């Protein structure tokens, strides 16, 4: 029962944020350069007065702003995000078409960064002040300060151009029709560079956080008790320190979903990865505002869902949070 109440309030919060984003989106579309009807007419290739009036009526642009907002909101509720005249397709279709590639990329990058970040942080914390700690801390510091798109370019230069180890472009080799396992392998080869690039920044974040958190927990009384009991250091670190140190790291990881989307935009742009980030770049080049704002909405929706899931999983995993 308690959980149902928590779930309900969490859902309500998500809906409120979602509504706010839709409203923001609506006003941004209105603020975009040019009369929307004129822009649409121009993109459709005709701009006479009758057509303009028709368009205004069709999209309710002749009605008061609040009515327009209502029309827009009910449209979004049925996942109608408008029409892209540049691509001659509904925005929602374009986005759904590209979404799987983005989910694959961000999902892989997330797993890589969390696993390697935590491993690096633990290693550094257990060897504080030794050369391996210095190495990991310095690397994290540098990757934390490096622009993601630049790392992506340098990775292309090194691993695709110089060594020709890995492909640097797209999700599949063009002109081949692999099926089954061969196709999976081809996609995996294309995934390596984008996922590692996107993961590097977050790896740095998680490594720093894990290290700091491990050192902090290591000072606590229950660790001293464990030492006094005569437990081996490895056991203390694994069973007592790490378990408690991971909590803030996992919280942070959940909160980073929005950042991950931003990183995906840059990574996909460099690697021509056919996801919604690349689509965002294309919509920018073509000044396709309907599409741009549609992508913004969907990316925000994704983040809201991820945040909500994190909160719920958290609550299920850590009983202490429920008690608070």
């Amino acid at each position, binding site marked *: 029962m308690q959980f149902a109440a928590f779930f309900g309030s969490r859902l309500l919060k998500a809906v409120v*944020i979602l509504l706010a984003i839709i409203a923001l989106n609506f006003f941004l579309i209105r603020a*975009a*350069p040019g009369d929307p009807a004129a822009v649409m007419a121009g993109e459709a290739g005709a701009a006479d007065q009758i057509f303009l009036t028709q368009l205004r009526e069709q999209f309710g642009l002749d009605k008061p702003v609040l009515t327009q907002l209502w029309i827009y909101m009910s449209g979004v509720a049925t996942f109608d995000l408008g029409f892209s005249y540049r691509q001659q397709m509904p925005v929602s279709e374009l986005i759904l078409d590209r979404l799987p590639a983005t989910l694959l990329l961000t999902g892989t990058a997330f797993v890589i960064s969390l696993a390697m970040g935590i491993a690096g942080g633990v290693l550094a914390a257990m060897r504080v002040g030794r050369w391996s700690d210095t190495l990991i801390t310095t690397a994290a*510091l540098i990757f934390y300060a*490096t622009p993601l798109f*630049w790392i992506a*370019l340098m990775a292309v230069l090194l691993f695709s151009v110089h060594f020709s180890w890995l492909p640097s472009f797209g999700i599949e080799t063009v002109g081949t029709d692999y099926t089954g396992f061969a196709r999976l392998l081809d996609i995996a080869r294309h995934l390596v560079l984008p996922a590692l690039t996107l993961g590097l920044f977050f790896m740095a974040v998680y490594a720093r956080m894990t290290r700091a958190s491990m050192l902090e927990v290591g000072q606590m009384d229950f660790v001293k008790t464990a030492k006094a009991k005569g437990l081996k250091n490895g056991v203390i670190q694994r069973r007592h320190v790490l378990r408690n140190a991971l909590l803030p790291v996992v919280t942070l990881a959940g909160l980073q979903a929005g950042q991950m989307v931003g*990183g995906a*935009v840059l990574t996909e742009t460099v690697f021509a990865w056919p996801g919604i980030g690349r689509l965002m770049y294309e919509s920018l080049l073509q000044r396709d505002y309907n599409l741009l704002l549609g992508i913004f909405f969907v990316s925000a929706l994704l*983040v809201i869902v991820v945040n909500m899931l994190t909160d719920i999983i958290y609550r299920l995993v850590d009983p202490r949070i429920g008690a608070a």
Partner: protein
Amino acid sequence: MRDFWTRFARNRGAVIGLIILLIVIAISVLAPLLFPQSPWRMVQRPFLPPFENPAFLFGTDTLGRNIAAGLAYGSQVSLIVGLVSTAVALLIGVPLGAVAGYHGGLVDDALMRFTEFFQTIPSFALAIVLVAVFEPSIYSIILAITVVSWVPIARLVRGEVLSLKSREYVEAAVLAGQTNLVIITRQILPNALSPIIVLASLTVASAILLEAALSFMGLGDPNLMSWGYMIGAGRTVIRTAWWLSFFPGIAILLTVLSLNLIGEGLNDALNPRLARTGR
């Protein structure tokens, strides 16, 4: 003050960071003297590799423009965008956070909902949308970066004020009949200054990264040479002319790194009680 410097200087990374930052600032100030010609001007043959002609140390780009000049003028954009957007974010975040933390109630509720909203939406995507909608210029870039930067500052200030307002010296000030404004500005904020300074230095760093990413996506101010633009422009020829994208990236890396190092140093120097573990 002297204590502060001794503690700051004890952190080797922070000193290195400060030196790098001072060099970057010097280059940006001296750019018009070092390179009197516009960084957009053709000065040599295109694709001149680096370290061949000492007059063009970092080579030239696709149009024969001097990359060293681009780097120097680009530092101006990075620093101005970083500093101005952080300053504006402070002007918004500090008062709002202070009022929310001090008074609580409706202002506080509203601020917390607002911060939740901004924590949820993907900030880089929002910045892209804002700059695209308001047309790329240095003003829209600063606006977009400010919009996504003020929230963490407001949250930090709120938390600090919340914990400081129940201190005895604040209660004494209330009893002495000081107005709320005086109490906030004279009693509370000075004591919350160190975490704000540390966060501000990190905000400048992330603003510089954001500006570079926006310019890389083609959303830079079309009249100003910036590091992100240079990397984006060199991208198509990366296979043959690596130096076009390489050097601006190093410039961003060094500048952002220096600010992060300074932030850590300030943190150590301003909070001597919180001795860093593992040193």
